[in-house]
């Protein structure tokens, strides 16, 4: 059955080529009205500034090149040599099967951030603390394209959130980057574009928020495509080819893949089912809407969690479609699971050991569902598959700023605590003297928490769900058990 389905998956992208023109219509809810703007506004509005920037960049690049002629040369003498930026790419030639599975080196940030003036210890997440999180374009390298600058801010503010949406938005921005790129004289596009023009963009994006697995996959694919460009191709043609390649990638790996997954996924929903989902996933949304359009009577339970409340958006969208939706928070997960008959989950990534890397809290929901022998189904495009493996949620994760945990209203609710705060803390914050009848402001709450020794808040973004909690992974290649993830990953990367 899985064979037949995967065969269908391979064929249908070709069949569906025609209607898919401009990237994904909706790569994900959040990004749909944002990404085109980001992509368009860049080149059009700021073209003057951009040109200037471009020239400067070129000048700099030329200077850099002459200076570092030797290392640059040595860097280019083989397809196997990695570019400087330390982003791993798949081996172009598959030598031995054992080698392809070798774990990627963890992406390390180059310049060591100076330890934050705040408390440095962070339970056992100290290794993640150097992950940068930039909320402004101050200090961004001047090579960074305006479209990418805007995108980075959207990443760091969670305006564009969700691994597929982030990847698609990035590729669209890269299209603009490539279109405005000009190879400096004496260089070939294939050699120069990746290392000198794309890398600063990627570094900037990474400084806004650590790259998602899908973004890493897409970047690796893009670099691979670029390096394979015949140096004799005229620059204009090469650029045009690249842009179409990117469009095709988005179409094949996301748009059509989503359609296929929704097509396969909705068949799993039966009459009278109560489908539980956690947080928000664009592909789960599509599947549920598809099933609803198909006329299957079922209800949905959305379980959600602080601080992003992504599930709220999903619940809103689904109820707008006319579905009957129930909304609970993760603390009530055990109640929610009791009422459910099926669990559909989205993914951030599928690890090669069959574990699901997804929004923090997913593991709890799947654990509870597994305990009740509910089927747990993961909907996941194969672009989210990674050769990385993980045992727990601690080694590889993304640390988010802790102050996001407390929303404005929650801070307000904490204000009456002020009378009870220890004097030492108030003195430390310099408030004891200025004591008056003035009303405390909500911003102070974070200061109290930061000011208190030993007290910290902690927020990570993902967790790892053990493979045994997952019954089925639906991809565009068909439905498979989590143990087949590495096989499919191998298949899909070979095709690139």
């Amino acid at each position, binding site marked *: 059955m899985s064979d037949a389905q995967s065969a269908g998956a391979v064929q249908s992208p070709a069949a569906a080529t025609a209607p898919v023109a401009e990237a994904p219509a909706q790569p994900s809810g959040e990004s749909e009205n944002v990404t085109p703007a980001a992509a368009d506004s860049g080149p059009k509005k700021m073209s003057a500034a951009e040109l200037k920037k471009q020239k400067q960049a070129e000048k700099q690049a030329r200077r850099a090149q002459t200076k570092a002629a030797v290392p640059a040369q040595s860097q280019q003498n083989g397809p196997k040599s990695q570019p400087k930026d330390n982003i791993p790419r798949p081996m172009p030639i598959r030598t031995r099967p054992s080698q392809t599975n070798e774990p990627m080196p963890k992406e390390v940030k180059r310049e060591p951030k100076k330890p934050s003036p705040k408390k440095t210890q962070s339970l056992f997440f100290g290794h993640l603390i150097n992950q940068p999180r930039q909320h402004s374009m101050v200090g961004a390298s001047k090579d960074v394209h305006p479209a990418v600058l805007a995108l980075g801010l959207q990443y760091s503010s969670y305006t564009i959130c969700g691994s597929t949406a982030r990847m698609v938005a990035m590729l669209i921005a890269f299209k603009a980057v490539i279109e405005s790129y000009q190879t400096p004289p004496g260089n070939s596009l294939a050699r120069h574009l990746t290392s000198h023009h794309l890398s600063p963009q990627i570094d900037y994006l990474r400084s806004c928020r650590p790259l998602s697995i899908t973004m890493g996959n897409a970047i690796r694919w893009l670099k691979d495509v670029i390096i394979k460009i015949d140096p004799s191709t005229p620059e204009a043609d090469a650029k045009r080819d690249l842009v179409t390649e990117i469009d095709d990638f988005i179409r094949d790996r996301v748009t059509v893949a989503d359609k296929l997954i929704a097509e396969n996924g909705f068949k799993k929903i039966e009459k009278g089912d109560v489908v539980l989902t956690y947080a928000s996933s664009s592909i789960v949304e599509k599947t549920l809407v598809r099933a609803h359009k198909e006329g299957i009577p079922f209800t949905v339970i959305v379980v959600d969690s602080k601080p992003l409340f992504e599930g709220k958006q999903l619940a809103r969208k689904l109820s707008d479609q006319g579905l009957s939706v129930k*909304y*609970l928070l993760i603390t009530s997960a055990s109640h929610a699971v009791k009422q459910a008959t099926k669990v559909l989950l989205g993914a951030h990534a599928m690890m090669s050991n069959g574990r699901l890397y997804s929004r923090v809290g997913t593991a709890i929901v799947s654990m509870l569902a597994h305990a009740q022998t509910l089927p747990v189904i993961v909907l996941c495009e194969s672009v989210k598959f990674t050769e990385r493996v993980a045992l727990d949620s601690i080694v590889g994760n993304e640390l988010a700023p802790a102050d996001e945990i407390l929303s404005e209203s929650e801070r307000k609710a904490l204000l009456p605590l002020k009378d009870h705060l220890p004097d030492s803390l108030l003195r430390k914050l310099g408030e004891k003297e200025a004591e008056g009848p003035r009303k405390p402001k909500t911003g102070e709450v974070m200061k109290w928490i930061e000011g208190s020794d030993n007290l910290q808040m902690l927020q990570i973004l993902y967790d790892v769900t053990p493979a045994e909690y997952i019954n089925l992974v639906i991809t565009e290649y068909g439905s498979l058990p989590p143990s087949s993830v590495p096989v499919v990953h191998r298949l899909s990367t070979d095709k690139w």
Partner: protein
Amino acid sequence: MAQGATVVTTPGLTSFLKSLKTTPADPSVDYLIALLKRRQIRSSRPCAIATTALLLRVVGEFKGRDAAKLVQRIRDVGRLLVAAQPREVVVGNIVRRVLGLVREVVDENMDSDTNVTNETEAGSQPEASSPRRPVLSSSISTFSPLHYAVAEPMHSSFQSEATFDSADLSRRPPLTASHTTSLGHSLFGLFSHPETPSASNTPTGQQSPTGKGLTTLNLERLADFNKSNVNVDLKAEVQDGIKELQDELEQSDELIAANALEHIHANEIILTHTASTSVQKFLLAAARKRKFTVVHAETHPLDHTATYGMALTGKKREHTPSDEEETWKPLIAAGIEVYVIPDSHVFAIMSRVNKVILATHTVLANGGLVAASGAAMIAKAAKEHQTPVVVVSGVYKLSPVYPFDIADLIEYGDAGSVVPYDDGDFVDKVDVEAPLFDYVPADLVDLYITNLGGHAPSFLYRIVADHYRTEDITL
């Protein structure tokens, strides 16, 4: 010990206790019913304090020497209170224990009539001898876990536990009985165990006719007591008992905390949730000697404000400055690192956690518990990671109720705390739920720590038997 009222003007525990001094019993009963119904007194401890205070008043105003009538009166008040807020199981617990007090006084005096032994030993000695036992146990063979209360009528330990040192706490000291006899009792109980269906898995209906028959049987006994005892001041003895119960409520946190060092080792990582005074004091007691790390799940949306209050100041927000006779520091001031995490992080963190300490709302006789929502997923995640789960609870929260229908015990709270009502569009279309409690089955719990010491969940039925009379299970 007063808690629960934000301002003196809002009705709550403090205002109730104040009014109780001047108001007669009947209006006070009505007042407490109203407060319970309006959730102005909520959560276990305030409910327990209010109920004991009220019953003290009720007993104090009781006229006459008729034990049966006193039992009837307490039972009537108890029924009203329980009906007002059935999910505050603690109210029923306290009523049952006061009823048990009355019966104990009756029993003691009956025995002292028939036996010539001195009064203090009268309670336990004659009953340890078998003659009366078979008769009684046969009369209620259906309700198995609690028939021990009759098969072996040990007295509730209403006395102040302060008299026991921590070494004794691991045992359950029955009132007036020496420790050796108590050991004899439990061994005796063990041997007689196989005759009856297993205690933990036979939650048969407690509203069985036998129970009622027993009640009448017992009332006859109480009536007998009436005739035979003229010189016993029933009222005064019961009042003393209730005062001891109040002491127990007051001291239970300290007694629980006395166990802390036996359970927390150096550099441990401990996960807890919600804002609980018992857990806080437990951890503080350990913090005096040892360094460890606390990971605190904030229990959004129902308790997170109190959780942050607890972490920052050591007190829940509701505490008024007037309660400050017993101030205690927050854990962070004791040099303990506290990490507040959103509840969704529990599974991710659990693999590094050494111990989970849960606060509870009610402990049930089968070893399961009802706790703030989120407890079930924490306990389950701990089980999946083989992390021990310790539940900290005063004995007064231990209820003889069996969870026949779990859904009955779960109260649903304000959905506006999940999605604010100003998001009218959303609230209109989407069904938002906010359960206040979770039921945690007994197999997810590894250890209970009460003011009597540590117990396995499977042993709790025995403590229930020590504290409640079978006759009173059905109020």
